[in-house]
């Protein structure tokens, strides 16, 4: 097909115009950011949503609000640019704003991530420490830590620690940490109560008094050559002395609240003071038993004084029937105030005991360890 000269000129001119158009377009594209920054915008939105709803977001609320303000500003610039005719659009400034906001968001996410890591580390450390403290054989240097004391705060602490462990396994770090702190608080209350209860075992005046009582029993046994029983509550030992020397030593279980001085009936405490064996039973409820003459005059005097002071109710009773008997268990203070030995130990003690025999019960005494050392 033959093409006339005029047509050829038109085609060449069109081709040249097209090339010029493409060239201009490329130059225009290169002269600024002409494409809409979709991914940056979406990235910013995702980051913002994560900052709003991510773990521990509540701790960064202020930063999140400031970030939202910056993001709003970037969005406003973006929409203004969108409204322009496409030839005049240049997203350079918008890109800078979006990148800046994205960097801030990324920084905040990093902070949140770091905080989460910190919380995890804090949780792991405090849970491990708590479990150690709650462990039955824990020795934290406190007297009472040697004993498995039954207490609501201790039970509460253990239950909360278990819940914290379970929540941590489910990835609920904040909640697990909260439970750990509550467990610590309960454990602290138990600690404080126990410290108060056991303070008298570290009181110098009390220790001196108990040492005097133990020494007096020993010297009596030494002078008379007769047998006597010394019960050391803190050591949970029942020592049989003869002629002032240790004849036998038995492990003893005490009242559930053994660490207190017995004041009244049903307080589950083991009395302290000088007593005598009033009667002997070969087959009581817990096998062989030595009935002590609790309450003695000192117990009665203290009881009356406390009743007069209003510490005890007027209907309170002083109680009685405190024995040294069998039925003992391993590592458990279970009696209502009696001293309980293992059946075979009790049989042995019973064989060596007599009515009128002296029994001294003390909170703690240095004599116990010195006699046992001998």
């Amino acid at each position: 097909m033959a093409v006339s000269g005029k047509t050829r000129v038109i085609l060449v001119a069109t081709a040249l115009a097209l090339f010029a158009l493409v060239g201009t377009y490329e130059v225009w594209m290169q002269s600024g950011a002409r494409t809409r920054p979709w991914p940056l915008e979406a990235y910013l939105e995702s980051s913002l949503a994560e900052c709003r709803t991510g773990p521990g977001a509540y701790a960064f609320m202020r930063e999140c609000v400031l970030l939202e303000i910056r993001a709003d500003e970037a969005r406003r610039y973006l929409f203004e640019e969108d409204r322009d005719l496409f030839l005049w659009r240049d997203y350079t400034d918008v890109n800078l704003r979006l990148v800046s906001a994205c960097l801030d968001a990324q920084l905040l996410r990093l902070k949140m991530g770091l905080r989460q890591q910190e919380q995890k580390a804090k949780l792991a450390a405090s849970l491990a420490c708590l479990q150690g403290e709650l462990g039955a054989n824990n020795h934290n240097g406190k007297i009472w830590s040697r004993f498995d004391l039954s207490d609501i705060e201790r039970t509460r602490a253990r239950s909360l620690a278990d819940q914290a462990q379970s929540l941590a396994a489910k990835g609920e770090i904040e909640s697990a940490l909260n439970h750990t702190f509550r467990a610590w608080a309960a454990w602290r209350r138990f600690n404080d109560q126990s410290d108060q209860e056991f303070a008298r075992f570290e009181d110098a005046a009390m220790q001196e008094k108990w040492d005097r009582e133990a020494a007096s029993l020993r010297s009596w046994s030494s002078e008379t050559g007769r047998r006597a029983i010394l019960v050391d509550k803190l050591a949970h030992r029942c020592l049989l002395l003869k002629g002032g020397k240790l004849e036998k030593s038995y492990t003893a279980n005490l009242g559930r609240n053994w660490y207190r001085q017995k004041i009244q009936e049903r307080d589950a405490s083991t009395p302290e003071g000088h007593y005598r064996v009033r009667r002997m039973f070969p087959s009581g409820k817990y096998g062989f038993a030595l009935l002590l003459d609790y309450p003695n005059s000192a117990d009665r005097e203290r009881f009356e004084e406390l009743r007069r002071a209003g510490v005890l109710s007027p209907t309170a009773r002083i109680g009685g029937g405190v024995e040294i008997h069998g039925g003992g268990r391993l590592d458990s203070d279970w009696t209502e105030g009696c001293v309980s030995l293992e059946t075979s130990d009790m049989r042995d003690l019973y064989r060596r005991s007599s009515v009128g025999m002296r029994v001294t019960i003390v909170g703690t005494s240095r004599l116990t360890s010195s006699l046992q050392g001998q």
Partner: protein
Amino acid sequence: MKKSFLAISLIVGCSLFLAACASAPTAEITATKAAVATAQTDDVRTYAPDSLKAAEDELNKALAEVQTQDGKFFVSRDYKQASAGLKSAKDLAEKAASDAQANKAKAKSDAEAVLAALPQSIEEAKKALAKAPKGKDTRADIEAMQNDLKVAEEALTEANTAMSSGQYKDALTKAESAKEKTSAITEQVQKALEKVRGRR
């Protein structure tokens, strides 16, 4: 003849040229972004975090593709891949929302099931404790069990509070802990009773 051939060529050329100038799928972008934004909630992040992450990643990938195409010379732009990515991201966002809903409902029903059985379990433990052989040698154990029961009752109250505030995982943990305690009490008392019966 020649003039009409030239006119036809120009019309066909322009049509092809215009057809080649594909524009960014803004409607799809808006819809997908809205779907992902709807899914970006506390609940979805808690109960379907992986699904949400997948949707966010897919959206970012699709939008990067849109920008890549935007940057090309207008005759060679092709948004087919971006459109497919956007559709996939939208589907993933919807899946994340439904996954979260399902997982949350499951967590809720699990917690509700344990919580519903708990008051009865506590009652049973109380009855068992009342029937427990009482004596000097069991008093310490009973006291310990009473402490356990009290703590279990506290856990029930806390579980109900957590339940009403939508913290189902918390509620479930507390309810399970309380259930474990009450079951242990009932079992312990049962054993003690059997021991006493055996002695007789």
